[in-house]
């Protein structure tokens, strides 16, 4: 379900050169990405 897929994508995933990706096509593409990025401050449970 597309909607389900949108919710599941970590917001930090970005294609090179793109700003803040919204829901939709990027969500489907993101499922196939081999590399995902996040800031070291992007995980819950640390100060």
């Amino acid at each position, binding site marked *: 379900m597309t909607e389900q897929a949108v919710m599941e994508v970590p917001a930090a995933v*970005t*294609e*090179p*050169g*793109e*700003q803040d990706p919204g829901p939709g096509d990027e969500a489907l593409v993101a499922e*196939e*990405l*081999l*590399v*995902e*990025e*996040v*800031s*070291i*401050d*992007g995980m819950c449970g640390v100060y």
Partner: protein
Amino acid sequence: MSTDGAGPAGAGAARFDLDRPWRIDDRVAVRPEPFGALLYHFGTRRLSFLKNTTVLAVLRSLAEHPSARSACAAAGVPEAALPAYERALATLAESSMITERP
């Protein structure tokens, strides 16, 4: 603390060149994981998740190959999958995890 900017700035960054030689940046730590690997850049404080072991193998062999394309071939990446690996390497270059060799 010094923070380095991530690679080429802004939208429209150059597409990744598979035919250039690349290497892992000196400030990057690579840690293998069951699912692939984690990369951490001590300059940018960014973390990259490599989601399979093949892309890790490609990454680790980059410095020894005359091009990223040949590193992918040596790691067994089939032609059909190459665009996905190119996109992965482009992401790593954009965030300064890998840099071009002279």
